[in-house]
Every structure is written in structure tokens, then in C-alpha cells.
């Protein structure tokens, strides 16, 4: 969509917000109609804050209290099917319980938006952060953004509705961020005094196929082998379109509001032999770890993946094409795979068909919120240069920091 955009006149308030509260503010400013959710750590304060906005009269919405996450997403889908702008939020076991409904949201082409405060999975029980829950949703046909600051969380929820409700997309969107490490961290966030510019950017799309007693339709049909495949192919095409739609949504957001993120973010990749790839809140720690190294002349850079699904292959290849070694830090494990990092696997497959490509090393870290400090990152950088000297990346993922395992 070719639009000339003027920078919107927005008066911003600078508030101390956690990423969870940033989600709630975005939901309020987007004038969401229906919210259905079930409490789960570390997501709960998202919905608590939304409930507060509704109670105060700051948001005119229906809050449905349900008895499980399965019902939460089902009710959200139903509201969306009836034409409402609908929202839910969850994490970890809650997202797992939603799993079958994730496919129904995307299969019915409903522009639901959901926030995920990512958390490890049971058993054993861990309430702490990693990305195992999110990575399990990889093949559900949800557009997936991973934010790395509370400001970006706010901005991404706004962009998410713009992308989801695009007539050429009509797919649900997840906005993920680190549980605890972001969900419970207070930091400055700019939110508008008045939400009109936000709604101008992401107007509600009520003009879509919906359940309407005046004009009956059927949703959730049974489709035989001679029909089903075509509907799935429609999703493939919509996902492909979503990539450019997400890019444009971000570009126009930047033109209007002065903040943009791209589909990926890079640091010093032009001049780097080793590039560290990360996602979510970890990227900030990576940058602060690398800055003093780059100052000393170490040829190291970083890339952050912001759009996970659809995967921005060309952007990633362009950013990493000059590197000699790419070290991908994944906070999730695909058990039984030699390369067990989901993002590492994706980057490998992006380069597979090419003649010239960097070596790629997969590192697993931060599982169950095992501590990652700047020192951890610098140890990974040191090891990366060692691997670069050897000229061959390890064939298996390295499980960084697990007790009893050492890598030479």
C-alpha cells in the first residue's frame, strides 16, 4: 500500500513501565474490544493492568474470565470471528494448553493478537525465562515478533494489529518478550497522551468476513482431502505476504512516530568476522558485552532476530553474508536434533543452497533463566574465535554453562 505519511503530531508521556504493562497500555490505546485470558506467571500483570483500565473506564472492552487458556484463546477467537478486535496473553504451560487452538485461530484466518511473556516448560517446574514455549509454536501459522525492550513491546503490539488485520494477511500475531527479564523489569516507555494517532495508524478492520446474524456464514467446516490442501496453501501465501506487510508496518510506524526496528537489527556486522545472533532481551546484554571489544578492535558484531515467523531469509543473509563465523545463541532446545537451536537451524537452512556461506555455530544458553552476563557473552566470543581459527564449526549444538560439560 503506497501511502505518503506525515509524521503524526503526538504528545508522548514517558512512563516507568514493565513490558507487561507496556502490553496493557498498547491494548488500551488500540481500543481492543474483547480480552479473554487466564492468569499465568509471568504474564498475569498484563491482564491485571487491562482489568484496571476497564474498571477505571479508560478502556471500553469486554473482559471474559475463563477457566483455562484453552478457553481463553477459544473465547478470543469467537470474539474475533464476530468481528471484534480481540486480545489474549499467556506464557509457558498456558501457551501449551492453547496449542490446538493456535492452529484454529490461524486456520480460520482470524486477526487475533496475543502477547507471550516467554517461560520455560515443565517438568520439572520452572517459572523462569527461556523460549521453549514460543519455539513450540513455530509451525502454527502465527506471525511471531520477538521484542527486546518494553518500548518495542508497546510498539510491536500496535504494529501487530496493523499486520494481522491487513486484508491480504488475516493471520494471528504473537508478540513475545523475555518472561521476568522483561515482563517484570521497569524501564522508560513513551506512550501517547491521546490514542487517536495510534488508531489512525492501526484502524480497526470491521469490514471483514465475520459471524453476523443478518448475513449468515459458516466457520469451522469439515473439508475433505479434495479441499483441505488449498486452504493450507492460502496460509502459506498469506505468511509470505506478511513478511513485506510487517516490513511496511514498521517503516510506516517509523515515519509516523519516529521509532522503527526493522525485521532484524544489526550491530557492527559490516566489519565483523564473528557475528553473534540473539533474540529478545538478551540482545541488549550482547551489545553491552561487545561494545568494549569492538572499541579494542575485535572484529565482532551482532544481529537480532525480531521477526521469527515469517522468517526474513533475505534480511538475515544480507546481515550475515560477510561474516566468517555466525554464532547463534538459542534459548530453547529441539530435543534429538544435532543442531538443537531452532533459530540456528533456520539460519543454516537459509544458507544451505549457497556456494559461499559463513560457518555457523549453535549455542544453547539461558535455559530456565540460567544466568547470562556480559562475561558469558565474551566467553562465547572468545570460543567463537577459537572455532574460527580451527576452521570448522562444531557439528552439534554446544550446551553452554551446563554443569559437567566442558568444550575445548
Amino acid at each position, binding site marked *: 500500500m503506497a501511502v505518503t505519511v506525515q509524521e503524526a503530531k503526538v504528545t508522548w508521556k514517558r512512563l516507568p513501565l514493565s513490558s507487561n504493562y507496556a502490553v496493557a497500555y498498547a491494548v488500551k490505546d488500540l481500543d481492543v474490544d474483547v480480552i479473554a485470558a487466564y492468569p499465568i506467571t509471568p504474564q498475569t500483570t498484563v491482564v491485571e493492568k487491562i482489568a484496571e483500565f476497564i474498571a477505571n473506564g479508560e478502556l471500553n472492552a469486554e473482559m471474559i474470565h475463563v477457566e483455562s487458556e484453552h478457553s481463553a484463546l477459544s473465547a478470543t477467537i469467537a470474539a474475533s470471528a464476530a468481528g471484534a478486535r480481540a486480545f489474549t496473553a499467556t506464557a509457558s504451560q498456558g501457551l501449551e494448553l492453547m496449542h490446538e487452538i493456535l492452529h484454529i485461530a490461524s486456520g*480460520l484466518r482470524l486477526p487475533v493478537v496475543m502477547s507471550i511473556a516467554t517461560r520455560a516448560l515443565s517438568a520439572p517446574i520452572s517459572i523462569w525465562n527461556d523460549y521453549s514455549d514460543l519455539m513450540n509454536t513455530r509451525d502454527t501459522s502465527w506471525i511471531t515478533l520477538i521484542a527486546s525492550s518494553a518500548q518495542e513491546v508497546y510498539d510491536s503490539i500496535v504494529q501487530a494489529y496493523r499486520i494481522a488485520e491487513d486484508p491480504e494477511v*488475516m493471520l494471528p500475531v504473537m508478540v513475545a518478550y523475555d518472561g521476568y527479564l522483561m515482563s517484570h523489569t521497569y524501564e522508560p516507555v513513551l506512550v501517547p497522551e491521546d490514542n487517536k494517532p495510534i488508531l489512525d495508524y492501526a484502524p480497526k478492520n470491521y469490514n471483514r468476513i465475520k459471524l453476523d446474524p443478518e448475513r449468515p456464514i459458516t466457520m469451522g467446516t469439515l473439508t475433505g482431502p479434495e479441499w483441505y490442501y488449498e*486452504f493450507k496453501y492460502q496460509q502459506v501465501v498469506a505468511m509470505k505476504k506478511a513478511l513485506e506487510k510487517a516490513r511496511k508496518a514498521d517503516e510506516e510506524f517509523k515515519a509516523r512516530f519516529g521509532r522503527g526496528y526493522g525485521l532484524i537489527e544489526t550491530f557492527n556486522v559490516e566489519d565483523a568476522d564473528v557475528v553473534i545472533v540473539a533474540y529478545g532481551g538478551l540482545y541488549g546484554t550482547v551489545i553491552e558485552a561487545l561494545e568494549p571489544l569492538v572499541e579494542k578492535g575485535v572484529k565482532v558484531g551482532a544481529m537480532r532476530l525480531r521477526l521469527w515467523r515469517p522468517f526474513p531469509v533475505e534480511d538475515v543473509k544480507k546481515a550475515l553474508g560477510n561474516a566468517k563465523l555466525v554464532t547463534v545463541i538459542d534459548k530453547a532446545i529441539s530435543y534429538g536434533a544435532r543442531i538443537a537451536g531452532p533459530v540456528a537451524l533456520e539460519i543454516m537452512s537459509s544458507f544451505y543452497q549457497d556456494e559461499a556461506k559463513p560457518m555457523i555455530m549453535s549455542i544453547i544458553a539461558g535455559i530456565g533463566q540460567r544466568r547470562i552476563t556480559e562475561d558469558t557473552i565474551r566467553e562465547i566470543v572468545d570460543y567463537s574465535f577459537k572455532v574460527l581459527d580451527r576452521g570448522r564449526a562444531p557439528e552439534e549444538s554446544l550446551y553452554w554453562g551446563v554443569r559437567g560439560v566442558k568444550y575445548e
Partner: protein
Amino acid sequence: MAAEEKLPAWNEIPPGGIIIEPGNAEERYTGDWRVFRPVINQDKCIRCLLCWVYCPDSVFHIIDEEYVTSKGRKYSFSLRIDYDHCKGCGICVEECPVNAIDFVEEVK
């Protein structure tokens, strides 16, 4: 369904398997699924309309046609079965309180 029937391509159908026109079950001919055919005995029928209630395919049509039974009982309407959509499930035969619906084999 005829195997050679040309089906629409992925971009010629509504998204998500959604059926956007209401009431299109009528276009689906299911009459050839029957092995047994329900046949109304208008003379025995007491017009209670339980068949009309129970039929899963809405094939019982109320016809504006008077009927006088052999015992002289007069009814202001009759019933007719839409055999293009009756699948021959036999629910009506089972539910009829006066056994006024016969179940007849299609092929003799």
C-alpha cells in the same frame, strides 16, 4: 461426486474454509446415498409431524393438499419427502408413533 469434476484453485475459494453463502446445503445432492427409501403411508399418518422434527436433513415438506383417510378422517395438509436430499437414514421410520412410514429397499 464425479472424479473429473473441475474444482476451483486455492485463490478461487474463500479463506479458511469459510462458507460465505448461507443455505447452500440444498445444492448438495445426497439422494443417491440411500439404500432404503422412506415412504409415507398417507392413510395411516396422523400428521403429528414428529418426522419433520427428527429428520436431520429437513426433507419432510408440508404440502398444502387436503387428504381424507379411508376411515373418513380429514386433514388439511399432506406430507411429501424430498428424495433429492433424503439420505435414507431411517430415523423417521424409527420415530413414527403409528408406523406410517415404510422403509423400502431401493434396488429390488
